[in-house]
């Protein structure tokens, strides 16, 4: 635990807190002490000035009188007085002996006083000033500094106590806090461990308090949800590839094996090889389709996106498929948007043309002879739509929603028609472009609409114009 970041942080903050409280207390102490000292000096100076004034006016006798009366009257004021002849005995005052400490240049001195108070010997600090008067008298006025030193002692003690308490409390708080945080980080670690061991369903517990840890847990959980979804999607794609490729591979294998087992002539070898080549092409076709879908689904949106005119794309596709429809006895009609409406979206030109081609291809493939396939682009009311409608059998209502669900559709279409990956690709392309793929009842038949979001459609003309100008 002592090696965890949280504990180290707690220790550092405890030390900082202790230092800060020490600093505050120290400052209070120092300023208070300075104030007290200042008051002491002022009091002594005032008293000294008063006494000097008395001396100047009344001479030594008046001074002695004044000191005498002060000594008797103001004992409790902590002031000390002593008058002494130079090189002679003390005259009057409330000090027993003249201090032995020499005064500084201004006459100030600090010394300790020993006295008998009520029979008890006492030692106390004092501060005083000595002034030499003209008549050879030396006057000492001072103050008992016991309170000042008591104050200092108390302050020093509380400072030490505060520092110690801050440190101890800080460390205890840190330990408690780090235990709490560690337990929550441990929960994340445990989840990660569960997932590492292969159980993707593990999730970080959320306490519900909505704090940073909850937000972290929520984000981690949504990330895990997404990863799990992607993995299961990928698994399904792999399963589908395996499923779709197994049968043609098996067919090819049997064909080659049977040819070898028999007594084939050259022509039969040739037929067998040609058949195998066709099988290979089928396999490659399916493989490429599945791979493209997976690539489109995994692609970064907006990569290589540019303004694309859907009228051109849909018109070109209709033109490409028109003879195919005609050969099947169908009609294929294309209607461009109303004059003045520009059906331009930002997207990948090749993918969009492939998607439209797949829709038209499907419509032609599943509409019986004599049917009608209509393709139109609608750019009115802000949204842009490419619509492919036929009057064939359509898709039953109950399958329509299933058809739109990626993998269900894949499975469904696989059973009903051929490789049937065309719509899966359209759906992937629609997703990439933020477009909606709607399957509607054309009564009769199926109407597939590729609806591009209003935002993309509206933003586009400006960009298109910019590109044209630049």
């Amino acid at each position, binding site marked *: 635990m002592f090696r965890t970041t949280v504990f180290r942080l707690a220790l550092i903050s405890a030390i900082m807190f202790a230092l800060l409280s020490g600093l505050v207390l120290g400052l209070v102490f120092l300023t208070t002490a300075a104030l007290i000292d200042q008051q002491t000096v002022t009091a002594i100076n005032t008293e000294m000035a008063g006494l000097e004034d008395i001396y100047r006016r009344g001479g030594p006798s008046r001074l002695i009188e004044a000191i005498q009366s002060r000594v008797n009257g103001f004992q409790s004021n902590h002031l000390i007085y002593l008058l002494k002849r130079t090189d002679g005995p003390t005259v009057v005052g409330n000090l027993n002996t003249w201090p032995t400490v020499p005064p500084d240049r201004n006459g100030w001195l600090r010394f300790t006083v020993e006295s008998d108070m009520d029979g008890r010997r006492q030692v106390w600090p004092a501060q005083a000033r000595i002034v030499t008067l003209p008549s050879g008298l030396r006057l000492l006025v001072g103050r008992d500094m016991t309170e000042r030193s008591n104050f200092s002692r108390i302050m020093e003690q509380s400072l030490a106590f505060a520092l110690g308490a801050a440190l101890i409390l800080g460390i205890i708080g840190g330990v408690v806090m780090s235990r709490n945080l560690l337990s929550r980080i441990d929960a994340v670690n445990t989840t990660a461990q569960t997932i590492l061991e292969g159980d993707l369903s593990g999730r970080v517990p959320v306490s519900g308090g909505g704090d940073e840890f909850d937000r972290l847990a929520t984000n981690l959980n949504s990330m895990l949800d997404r990863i799990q979804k992607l993995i299961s999607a990928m698994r399904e794609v792999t399963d589908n590839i395996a499923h779709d490729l197994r049968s043609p591979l098996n067919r090819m294998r049997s064909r080659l094996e049977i040819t070898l087992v028999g007594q084939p002539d050259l022509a039969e070898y040739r037929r067998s090889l040609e058949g195998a080549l066709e099988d290979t092409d089928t396999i*490659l*076709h399916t493989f490429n389709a599945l791979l493209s879908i997976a690539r489109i689904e995994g692609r970064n949106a907006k990569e290589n996106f540019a303004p694309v005119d859907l009228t051109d794309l849909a018109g070109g596709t209709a033109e490409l498929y028109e003879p195919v429809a005609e050969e099947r006895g169908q009609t294929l009609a294309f209607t461009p948007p109303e004059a003045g409406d520009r059906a331009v979206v930002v997207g990948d030109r090749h993918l969009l043309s492939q998607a439209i081609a797949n829709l038209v*291809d499907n419509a032609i493939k599943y509409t019986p002879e004599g049917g009608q396939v209509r393709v139109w682009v609608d750019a009115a009311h802000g949204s842009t739509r490419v619509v492919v409608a036929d009057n064939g059998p359509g898709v039953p209502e109950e399958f329509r929603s299933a058809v739109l669900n990626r993998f269900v559709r894949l499975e469904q279409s696989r059973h009903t028609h051929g490789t049937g990956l065309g719509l899966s690709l359209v759906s992937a392309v629609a997703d990439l472009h933020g477009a909606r793929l709607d399957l509607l009842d054309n009564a009769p038949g199926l109407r597939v609409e590729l609806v591009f979001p209003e935002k993309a459609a509206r933003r586009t003309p400006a960009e298109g114009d910019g590109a044209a100008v630049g």
Partner: protein
Amino acid sequence: MRILVVEDDAEAAAYLAKGLRESGYVVDHADNGMDGLYMATNEPYDAIVLDRMLPRLDGLAVVETLRKAGKQTPVLILSALGEVDARVQGLRAGGDDYLAKPYAFSELLARMEALLRRGEGPTQQTRLQVGDLEMDLLARQVTRSGRTIALQPREFRLLEYLMRHAGQVVTRTMLLENVWDYHFDPQTNVIDVHVSRLRQKVDKDFDKALIHTVRGAGYVLRESD
């Protein structure tokens, strides 16, 4: 015609070389980008088949270096990356054509021949002629034996492409890419329908057919059978 094959997969290279030799080409092989670049710079090849992923020097770097050195030998890039973007990258680097793996050998051969013949003939042609079929590119008119054949704009471009590559096999993918600018494999064989429509107009009323189907490969427009 000498062709350089730069491909690191020994087996694939062997098949490719065998196929090309059987088609009448002289083939040299390099199995890495450095050797490939060295050979391409120092020997007069008519075309280069270049794999994109190569040891020692990447395929794209080989083309770029070659082009910077002023070598204009046609380059066909082969790649396992089938994306349209990968194709654009290959062409931007200086490649002349791009084929995604796995490819059909007939496809590679057809594209190779198209690259080899590209330099032939005047570039600014205004008239194309194959047998009694004539195309006036300025007037956008097609006549056969003096009779005017009315074509839709797309049919005109399809025929123009076939005539420009007269005598060469042209695959469905090549037509889809060059006439329609579609770079994917449509599920239905739309090209066959377009070609058969064109045949109706160009060949139906005449004794000799000009548009021929090449089994397993594509089409060829030529005078004789």
